[in-house]
């Protein structure tokens, strides 16, 4: 009942004109960047951070950022269905059946089951978030420094093991991120580390610079190296058919179970440190395929293959917020940027945030309900607008990304060194893409590394340099053992690698054919 009252107070926060405006701006920008290939929610939030600081309204800004995250999940489906180029990794599973539906003149049906499924999943998972948050925050109060250290280890290890096809490459990305996180003055003693005599490096490398380099610069340069294989053909929308919200009775009855199953998968996977939405969407895809009564349709546009993964990716977003808000532990790249955003406002997510700034926490949670309604409206009746967005010429789109990226780093820091650091990271990111090193572990390394080190040293300080502190506390020990176990969890990545292989093989076949 307590959570319910808190949530109502949260609605009180959101339902003011200013915050509704922030939510509307957030979901619109989010859908836009979700639709546009090459720009995702992590980059968008990083670029908006400096602007948001000027506005000096933490609640509004965080509502906007949550809207961007959720909106990108909706928008990503449009691109995967109409273009067969997933806007971000969470939509890869959707593109397999979704694009097939679009090719067979069922684009509207696919978009509708994606949007309504996202709405259902978003709403249910936000209710779950609201009721899990308070007990989790209460539990989190009992966490000590050694537990936080173990938790950070667990989060890093699982994300690394689960993202991408190869553990070695994931670990390499993570290590690179950990290294970037070390650059600068040590926060406890003020000793300079890896600054190479460059004074600008003393403050460390800003997360905005790193994200701009990895995503904006890296992505654009990589695209530039393979311009000629870009698919540019947008599948046209068929005229709206009969049935409620473009779905026939049969479509509804085939969609609702995958929606619920997708939600049930997405929320816990998002809450666990498993790297956000990638895993649950593929698990949902596989599950629906195995349960399907129409096996012959798979590969030719089975509606369940869109309904399940889309629900899973939206549910995972609410799941991601559980550890982010209650423990301050990010489990996806975008969550890591959001954590940085909290930091910019001198807010530390965790149990204290629930006590000190309940209006921010509950305003944020309530805004997700409001945002979901807005997103449904944005994505169904206004779908033609987003189809137009998809037709933006690629050269101009990527040029625009570069302009905003340079602006984001330069205009704000005023330091050309920061710009060159971003370019350098961008060049590294091109090679990472070339050799298929995953990007997300870098960002988690940058954010979680320093957190981990500080908690490690704090724990040692409290225990008089006694290392056994990490095995004496049962909770710490369990978390560390889980981290070890996660390293030996090869089943899911293999499954995903297999699915990916199949999917990319299919895509190749199409480019030959089209």
């Amino acid at each position, binding site marked *: 009942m307590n959570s319910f009252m808190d949530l109502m107070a949260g609605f009180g926060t959101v339902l003011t004109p200013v915050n509704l405006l922030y939510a509307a701006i957030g979901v619109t920008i989010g859908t836009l960047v979700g639709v546009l290939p090459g720009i995702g929610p992590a980059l968008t939030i990083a670029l908006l951070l400096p602007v948001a600081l*000027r506005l000096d309204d933490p609640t509004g800004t965080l509502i906007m950022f949550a809207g961007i995250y959720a909106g990108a999940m909706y928008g990503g489906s449009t691109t995967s269905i109409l273009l067969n180029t997933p806007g971000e990794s969470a939509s890869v599973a959707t593109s397999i059946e979704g694009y097939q539906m679009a090719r067979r003149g069922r684009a509207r049906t696919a978009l509708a089951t994606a949007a309504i499924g996202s709405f259902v999943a978003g709403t249910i998972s936000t209710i779950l978030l609201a009721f899990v948050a308070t007990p989790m925050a209460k539990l989190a109060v009992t966490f000590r420094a050694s537990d936080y250290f173990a938790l950070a280890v667990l989060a890093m290890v699982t994300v690394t093991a689960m993202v991408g096809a190869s553990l070695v490459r994931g670990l390499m990305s993570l290590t690179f991120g950990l290294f970037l996180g070390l650059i600068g003055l040590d926060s406890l003693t003020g000793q300079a580390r890896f600054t190479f005599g460059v004074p600008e490096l003393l403050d460390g490398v800003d997360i905005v610079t790193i994200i701009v380099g990895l995503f904006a610069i890296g992505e654009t340069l990589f695209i530039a190296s393979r311009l000629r294989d870009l698919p540019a053909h947008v599948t046209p929308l068929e005229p709206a058919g009969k049935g409620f919200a473009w779905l026939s009775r049969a479509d509804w009855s085939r969609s609702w179970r995958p929606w619920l199953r997708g939600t049930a998968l997405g929320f816990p996977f998002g809450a666990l440190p498993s790297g956000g939405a990638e895993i649950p969407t593929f698990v949902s895809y596989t599950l629906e395929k195995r349960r399907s009564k129409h096996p012959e349709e798979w590969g030719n546009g089975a509606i369940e293959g869109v309904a399940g993964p889309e629900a899973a990716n939206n549910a995972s977003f609410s799941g991601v917020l559980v550890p982010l808000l209650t423990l301050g532990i990010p489990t996806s790249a975008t969550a890591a940027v959001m954590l940085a955003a909290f930091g910019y406002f001198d807010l530390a997510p965790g149990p204290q945030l629930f006590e000190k700034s309940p209006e921010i926490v509950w305003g944020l949670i309530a805004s997700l309900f409001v945002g979901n309604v807005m997103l449904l409206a944005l994505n169904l009746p206004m779908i033609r607008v987003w189809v137009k967005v998809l037709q933006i010429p690629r050269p101009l789109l990527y040029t625009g990304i570069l*302009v905003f990226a340079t602006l984001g780093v330069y205009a704000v820091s005023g330091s050309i060194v920061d710009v060159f650091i971003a*370019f350098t990271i961008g060049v590294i990111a091109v090679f990472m893409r*070339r050799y298929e090193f995953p990007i997300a572990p870098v960002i988690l390394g940058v954010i979680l590394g320093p957190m981990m080190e500080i908690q490690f040293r704090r724990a*040692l300080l409290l225990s008089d340099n006694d290392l056994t502190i990490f095995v004496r506390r049962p909770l710490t020990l369990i978390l560390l053992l889980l981290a070890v176990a996660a390293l030996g969890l090869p089943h899911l990545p293999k499954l995903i690698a297999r699915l990916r292989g199949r999917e*990319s093989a299919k895509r190749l076949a199409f480019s030959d054919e089209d």
Partner: protein
Amino acid sequence: MTSALPPDPEQATPEAAPSASGAPVAGVVLLLAGAALLWQAVTTGIDNGVTLGGPTLAPIVVTGLWVAVALGYLLEAVRKRAVAGEAAGLTTWRTPLLLLVALVCYAVVLKYTVLGYVLATAVFVLVAARLLSTRPVREVIVRDLATAVALSLGIYLVFTRLLGIVLPAGVLPL
């Protein structure tokens, strides 16, 4: 870095671009970089002393991990060259290189010349759009020009007038 390598005839499949043997080179570069960083971390540790709760431990741990993982990656890349992950269809290094040069010039012009944000951005947009485009100039020049002017002016006005973030005005009377 990889373009200098001769294509491996055995794995020259159409989707695994000309230089599929680049992964071991990447592994060597990673290993060398890691070793150099580890060396720096260890010498710093020797100079300042390494304690469990001190600031010199984490750099040694992280760079040590780097070296170990890079070694693992190198071994994997050498052992199964064909399997080592490589994004297919990388066609050219020329465009990204030119684009990078354009970016660096853009940043230098912004910082060290009086050209100003609007002009520098407009020129950069034209250059970058041209580099990224595969269509002939005359088909897209009007569109590119319009975008260049609208984007540079739009950003300048929004940031300086609405958000109060200072951008160099330069030679234009804005």
